[in-house]
C-alpha cells in the first residue's frame, strides 16, 4: 500500500494517512498525504506554533520595525538569536527582542496597560524606529486583551508611528502555518495601499516569500537591479515596513514560498489585479527559468537572456565540478514544507542527486501535490514526521546527507550522517545561481567529510 504505516507508528495507526511512498503509475488523485491537521500529542512532532510562523518567519525579518511580543517573556526570548536573516540596516532585526513581559497580575487583571507602557518605552528607547508589529501570544489571546484599542491610543498620542497587530496565539491552527496565514491576510487588508513609494522604473515587481536567509533576498535584488527592475517590496526579506505597505504598486508578484506567502500573492491579485507568478528561486536551472520568465513578462527578453548567459558562463563550470562528485548521492529533506518541492527536482537536474525521503512540518496538501509531482518514485513523503519515524526512514533509505534543522542534524550526527541546515543554511546564500553553487559546495564538503568515515571505525577491532 502506498499510504504506509511504519513500525514505530503501529500504536498510533492514524499516522498511515500521512506517509506515502510513491509508486509507478500512481497519481495524487488516488493518494495524497493528509496535511495541516491536528498534531498527535506526545508524538515528538517537529512542529512549532502559530506565533512562530507570524513573528519568527515573516514579521521579524523586517529591518526597521520594532517587534513587540505581547505575552510572558519566553515567546520573545525564543524568537531572538534563532534566525540568520541579515539586512543592510546594521542587522537591527537580529539584535533586539521586545516583550510586554506579562506577569500573573496582568493575566488576572488584563495586560493592556502594561502593553501600552511597553510600547511607549520601546518608541522612546529606539527613537529612529517609527514602525511596530505587535503579536499576541497564548496568554494574551486567552484573556482577550484588546490590542487594537491600545494601538489606536498610542498612534494618536505619538502621531508619527504606524503599528500593525497580528493575532497569532501559539495554540491557533496546528502549526506555524496559521501564523503565516493570519499575518498575510491582515497585512494586505489593513496596510497594503496605505503608502506609496517613488516609482523609478517601468518594470516593478514584488518578490514574495523569501526572507533574506543569509542574504538570499539581497542577492535576488541585485539580479533585479542588473535588469533595471525596481523591487517594490520583498515580502519580507531585507524589507521595510513601508515598502511592504506599497506592494499594490507592482506590476507583477513573483512568489517563491507559496506556503507562507501565497496568501498575500493571491490577495494582491484579487484586490489589485497584480498577477502571481510562482517561481523557484533555488536551483541553478530553475533560476535561469525564473529570470527568463520575468524578462518575458516585462518585454526585456534579450536583457534577461544576456544576464542568464553571463551567470551560466561564470558559474556552471563550478556547479558541474560538484555534479561529477555528487551524482547518485542520496539526500533526505526534512524542513517546513516548500523546500521539499523546491529542491527535490533541482538537486536531481542540477547535480544528479537522488532525494529519497522528505518530511514536511507544516505543509498543506497543496505542497504534497507539488512535491509528489516533482519527486522520485520510491521516495518517502511524510507529513508532520516525528522522531521515531525519522529513525525508521533513515534505515529504509540510507541517505548520505540530510537537510534539516540544527537539532535534528545533531541527532543524525550520531548515526554518522552529516546534515546541512535546511532552514538557515550552512554557508549561504543558497538562492540564485551563486547560491546553487554554495549549496553544492556545502553538500560536497559534508558528504566527503572524513569525520563521518572515521566515526564509523571501532579502534578496538583489528
Amino acid at each position, binding site marked *: 500500500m502506498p499510504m504506509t504505516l511504519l513500525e*514505530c507508528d503501529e500504536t*498510533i495507526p492514524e499516522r498511515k494517512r500521512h506517509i506515502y511512498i510513491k509508486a509507478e503509475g500512481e497519481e495524487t488523485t488516488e493518494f495524497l498525504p493528509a496535511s495541516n491537521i491536528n*498534531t498527535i*500529542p*506526545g*508524538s*515528538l*512532532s517537529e512542529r*512549532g*506554533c502559530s*506565533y*512562530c510562523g507570524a513573528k519568527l518567519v515573516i514579521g521579524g525579518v523586517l529591518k526597521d520595525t520594532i517587534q*513587540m511580543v505581547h*505575552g*510572558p*517573556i*519566553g*515567546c520573545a*526570548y*525564543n*524568537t*531572538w*538569536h*534563532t534566525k540568520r536573516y541579515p539586512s543592510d540596516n546594521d542587522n537591527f532585526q537580529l*539584535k*533586539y*527582542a*521586545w*516583550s*510586554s*513581559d*506579562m*506577569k*500573573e497580575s*496582568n*493575566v488576572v487583571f488584563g495586560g493592556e496597560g*502594561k502593553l501600552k*507602557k511597553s*510600547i511607549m*518605552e*520601546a518608541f522612546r*528607547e529606539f527613537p529612529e524606529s517609527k514602525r511596530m508589529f505587535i503579536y499576541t501570544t*497564548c*496568554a494574551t489571546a*486567552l484573556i482577550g486583551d484588546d490590542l487594537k484599542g491600545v494601538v489606536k491610543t498610542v498612534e494618536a498620542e505619538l502621531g508619527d508611528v504606524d503599528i500593525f497587530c497580528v493575532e497569532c*496565539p*501559539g*495554540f491557533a*491552527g*496546528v502549526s506555524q502555518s496559521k501564523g503565516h496565514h493570519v499575518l498575510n491576510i491582515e497585512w494586505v487588508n489593513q496596510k497594503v495601499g496605505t503608502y506609496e513609494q517613488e516609482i523609478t522604473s517601468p518594470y516593478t515587481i514584488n518578490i514574495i516569500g523569501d526572507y533574506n536567509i543569509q542574504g538570499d533576498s539581497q542577492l535576488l535584488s541585485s539580479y533585479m537591479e542588473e535588469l533595471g527592475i525596481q523591487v517594490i517590496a520583498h515580502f519580507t526579506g531585507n524589507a521595510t515596513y513601508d515598502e511592504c505597505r506599497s506592494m499594490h504598486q507592482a506590476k507583477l508578484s513573483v512568489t517563491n514560498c507559496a506556503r507562507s506567502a501565497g496568501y498575500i500573492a493571491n490577495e494582491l491579485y484579487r484586490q489589485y489585479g497584480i498577477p502571481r507568478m510562482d517561481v523557484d528561486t533555488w536551483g541553478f536551472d530553475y533560476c535561469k527559468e525564473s529570470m527568463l520568465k520575468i524578462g518575458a513578462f516585462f518585454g526585456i527578453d534579450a536583457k534577461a537572456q544576456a544576464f542568464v548567459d553571463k551567470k551560466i558562463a561564470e558559474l556552471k563550470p563550478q556547479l558541474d565540478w560538484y555534479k561529477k562528485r555528487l551524482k547518485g548521492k542520496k539526500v533526505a529533506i526534512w524542513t517546513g514544507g516548500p523546500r521539499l518541492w523546491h529542491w527535490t527536482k533541482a538537486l536531481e537536474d542540477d547535480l544528479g542527486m537522488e532525494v529519497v525521503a522528505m518530511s514536511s512540518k507544516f505543509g498543506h496538501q497543496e505542497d504534497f501535490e507539488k512535491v509528489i509531482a516533482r519527486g522520485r518514485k520510491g521516495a518517502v513523503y511524510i507529513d508532520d514526521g516525528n522522531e521515531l519515524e525519522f529513525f525508521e526512514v533513515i534505515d529504509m533509505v540510507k541517505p548520505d546527507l540530510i537537510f534539516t*534543522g*540544527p*537539532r535534528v542534524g*545533531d541527532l543524525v550526527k*550520531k*548515526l*554518522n550522517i552529516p546534515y546541512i541546515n535546511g532552514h538557515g543554511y550552512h554557508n549561504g546564500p543558497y538562492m540564485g545561481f551563486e547560491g546553487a553553487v554554495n549549496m553544492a559546495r556545502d553538500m560536497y564538503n559534508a558528504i566527503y567529510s572524513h569525520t563521518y568515515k572515521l*566515526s564509523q*571505525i*571501532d579502534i578496538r577491532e583489528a
Partner: protein
Amino acid sequence: MPVEIKDKDRAGNVNPIFNCQPCGAQYAVIGLKDCIGLVHGGQGCCTFVRLMFAQHFKENFDLASSSLHEDAAVFGAMNKAREGCEVLARRYPDIRLIPMITTCSTETIGDDMDSVKVQVDEYLAENFPDRDLRVFPIHTPSYAGSQVKGYDTAILTLVQQLAKRGEANGKINVFTGWINPGDVQELKYILAEMKVDANILIDTISFDSPMLPDKSGFARGNTTVEDIEESANALGSIALYKYEGGNAAKYLERLYKVPAETDIIPIGIENTDKFIKKVSQMTGKEIPYSLVEQRGKALDAIADLGHMFLADKKVAIYGDPDLVIGLADFCIECGMQPVLLLFGDDLKAYKKDPRILAYEEKAANFDMEVICNADLWDLESRLKDESLKLDLILGHSKGRYISIDYGIPMVRVGFPTFDRAGVYKHPVIGYKGAEYLAEEIANAIFTDMEYKKDKEWKLNVW
C-alpha cells in the same frame, strides 16, 4: 563603596536575560534517565526550548508536546495531556517518567493536571500493568518568575513526588542547579578525590556525548528514579545554586531531616574552599592533598594574571543568579571590579540575599550597581549613553551584539553559550573552574588588545 540595588525602571522588557519557567523545567527533566517530559501547551513551548538546548550543546534532547490547539483553548486541554502521556507510553516502552510541564496557556485555562494523572495511571494499570511508569505534573506558568524558578520548581516537584524514606545511605545529595556537564565533571572529580559518595541531582555529564561506531552516542540524562528516591536517606544536601535546587534541599530537610546547605556557590577560590570544607564537615571525610595542589595550580595561574592584567578591570555580569553572585565574588578575588550585576527576573529574594548585601563590604574601592528584573537593554543603554565604561562582559550568548557593537571583550558563561565552541565542556565551579575563567578572561582581553592595537606589545614578554 556604595552598592545600589534597584529594579529596572521600565515596565516592558528589551532583550530578555531569561527564558520562561517551562524552559527551566525542561532542562531539569532532560537530565533524567528514561524520561520524556510532556510540555503541556502550544507546540512552541516545547520546540523552541529543544532548539535552545541544541544551540547550547549541539545535541538533541527528547521532549514532547501535548500540542494544544484551538479547540482545547475553548474546551480545556486535559484530554490532550492524557493522550500525550498515553502515546508516549505506547511508543517508548522503556521510559519510566513522564513529567507533565504546564505552560501559561494551560495554567490560564486551568487544566486539572491531578485528574489527568489519575486518568493516565488508570490507563497504564489497564494496558501496561507491569510497567513502572510515573506521571505527574510540574506547575510552571510562564507569567511568573523565569527559567530559574521553573528549574527550581521542577527539582522540588521531582523530590516531592519521588523521594522515599528508606535506609540511610551515607551519601550526600548535591543539587547542582543549572550547570554545565563540565561543571558536573569537575564536581565529580572533587568528590571522588575526597572519597565522598554523592548523589548528583541532576547528573548531566552525558550531555557532552560522543559519535560512536555503534551509533549509540546520543546525549542523555543519568539520574534515575531510584537516585531521587534515595535523596530522602542522605546524610546531607548541598545546593550549589540556591535559586535552582535550594528549595528541594530545604524540603528534604523539613520532611526527612536531611540537613541542607544552600548558600555556598563553589565559584572562585574562596567559595570553593567553603564548599570543600562543608563537604568535609558533612561527610567526615578528609580534604586530600590533591585538592590542595589543584587549588595551588589555580592560584598560580591567577597570580600570573591578577595584578598585572585583571586588576581594576570593570565587569558586567548577567545570567543565573547564583552564577552571577559567584562570578562577582571571583572577580573581586582577582582584583576585578564587577560594577554592574543584572538579575534577569523579579524574584523578591534577591534584595534580601545576604550574599548580595555582602557586596557593600566586599566591593572595597568601586561602586556597584545591582539591577533586579533586569534586561540586556539595561546594559546596552548604559554603554550607549556612555554612563558606563566596561572592560569585560561575563554572560550568555544572547548578549553577543553588545560585545560586538561596543567592542567589549566578552567571556561566555551560563546559558546558552552557542556562539563559541565547547564552552559547556569546561567548568566554572571549583578550582579548575577558577583557573579556566581566569585564563579565558585573560585571553579575551589579550585578543582585544591585539585587535585594537592597545599596547599589545605587553604580551611579548609576559
